[in-house]
């Protein structure tokens, strides 16, 4: 083998070609097999570290020496030229404490585990109605457009107080924002478009408050109108595209492994089954970006202050030492009886997904109900994956029952 200097540096984001359609781009597990830290190159040409080990990923995401502040001049970006889109007031996903904590705490009350438990009957109703519509008078459907997308979209619209009639508009804008094929110009337009929409809506909510999250944000005097709109965009985009793709991918994967579907039927094993689906699918394939504020020894290398790192959730979630073991299938396979509670699909550290109790409830209810009500559910044609998106998912999944 050649030595390090002549080894080609892995270019990010790696293409999604070859390998299992449910797994991450093969280059990431290949890098993980060589060690927990790999040199990689960003589209703008800067070098960064691909962090693939379970322990190292947890460290990056919970150690304050790694910053999530996108305004840092060396913050790793996966779209060439995207640095010019960064504004002075990013949403709190890309800010550090104390400002991150200040803004996040304005929302935590909305996503308490017990608040979400109270929402379950409402989520169940949304799921049942979506299935009623999907099955009324026909025997085939596209599970993506008829079920996986509308369910989380209806739920987040209800919580935020966004009129569902507008969902076409923000859905296509958020698609553009999440696509790695978008040009900087398209990204700018989409970003402005969604912000504009949320600005209008929060202004209306300030004038005529209702019982919803956006009204409560709009009414605060410690949050600027601009920050309230940015928070609305974050919730809207984070809240529906992720869960929708998890529902679609989970369904497709389970249809490939029908012998495991009974694992969803028992209320005692359903939560664990959903953790395993989250682990194996880890839809944020590209990893989570951070920048080192100081020199940090990690995984046998020194990450220098000012270097970018990408915390790769998908490879961390396949660590055999953590998720493997006697009697378990290999970690790149589905095993609904695995103890997957350590999975990192929602990230780790202070930015860990704020919506995770909601996402869990939606996934549990949607998947359990789907396979209970349609026990004969099976594929009915060519399925297509959404390989161009930063959030991995499905474009279509034709089914019959």
């Amino acid at each position: 083998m050649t030595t390090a200097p002549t080894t080609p540096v892995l270019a990010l984001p790696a293409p999604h070609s070859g390998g299992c359609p449910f797994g991450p781009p093969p280059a990431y597990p290949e890098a993980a097999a060589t060690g927990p830290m790999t040199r990689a190159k960003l589209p703008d040409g800067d070098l960064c570290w691909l962090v693939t080990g379970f322990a190292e990923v947890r460290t990056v995401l919970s150690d304050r020496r790694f910053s999530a502040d996108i305004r840092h001049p060396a913050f790793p970006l996966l779209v060439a030229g995207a640095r010019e889109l960064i504004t002075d007031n990013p949403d709190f996903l890309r800010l550090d404490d104390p400002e991150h904590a200040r803004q996040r705490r304005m929302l935590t009350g909305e996503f308490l585990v017990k608040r979400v438990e109270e929402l379950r009957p409402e989520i169940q109703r949304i799921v049942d109605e979506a299935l009623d519509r999907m099955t009324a008078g026909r025997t085939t459907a596209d599970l993506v457009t008829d079920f996986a997308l509308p369910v989380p979209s209806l739920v987040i619209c209800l919580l935020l107080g966004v009129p569902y009639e507008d969902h076409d508009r923000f859905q296509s804008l958020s698609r553009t924002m999440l696509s790695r094929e978008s040009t900087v110009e398209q990204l700018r337009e989409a970003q402005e478009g969604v912000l504009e929409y949320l600005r209008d809506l929060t202004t209306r909510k300030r004038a005529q408050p209702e019982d919803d999250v956006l009204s409560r944000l709009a009414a605060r005097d410690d949050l600027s109108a601009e920050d309230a709109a940015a928070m609305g965009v974050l919730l809207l985009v984070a809240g529906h595209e992720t869960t929708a793709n998890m529902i679609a991918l989970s369904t497709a994967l389970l249809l490939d492994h029908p012998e495991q579907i009974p694992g969803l039927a028992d209320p005692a094993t359903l939560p664990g089954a959903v953790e395993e689906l989250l682990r194996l699918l880890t839809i944020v394939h590209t990893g989570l970006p951070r920048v080192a504020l100081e020199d940090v020894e990690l995984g046998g290398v020194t990450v220098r202050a000012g270097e970018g790192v990408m915390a790769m959730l998908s490879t961390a979630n396949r660590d055999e030492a953590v998720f493997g073991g006697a009697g378990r299938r290999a970690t790149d396979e589905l095993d609904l009886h695995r103890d997957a509670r350590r999975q990192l699909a929602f990230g780790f550290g202070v930015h860990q997904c704020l919506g995770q109790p909601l996402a869990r409830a939606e996934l549990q209810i949607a998947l359990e109900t789907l396979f209970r009500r349609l026990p004969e559910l099976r594929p009915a044609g060519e399925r297509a994956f959404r390989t161009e998106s930063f959030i991995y998912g499905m474009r279509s999944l034709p089914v019959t029952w």
Partner: protein
Amino acid sequence: MQVSVDRDRCCSSGMCVTNAPEVFDQDDRDSLVMLRQTVVPPEQFDDVRLAAELCPGRAITVTGDGPARTGA
């Protein structure tokens, strides 16, 4: 076993409530972690240890193994 929580470090993920609902709760007023019980029975040791390991804010500390009292 002793459990203590540092509310300044809590980021309200709810992971502890999901993993050990008998021991942890989220405060209605500020959404931060709260202990529900002062004595952790041995059958909950594993859940509590997992909750401490998985707390994304590193806000939960577990000490000792015996069926001891809780602190904080």
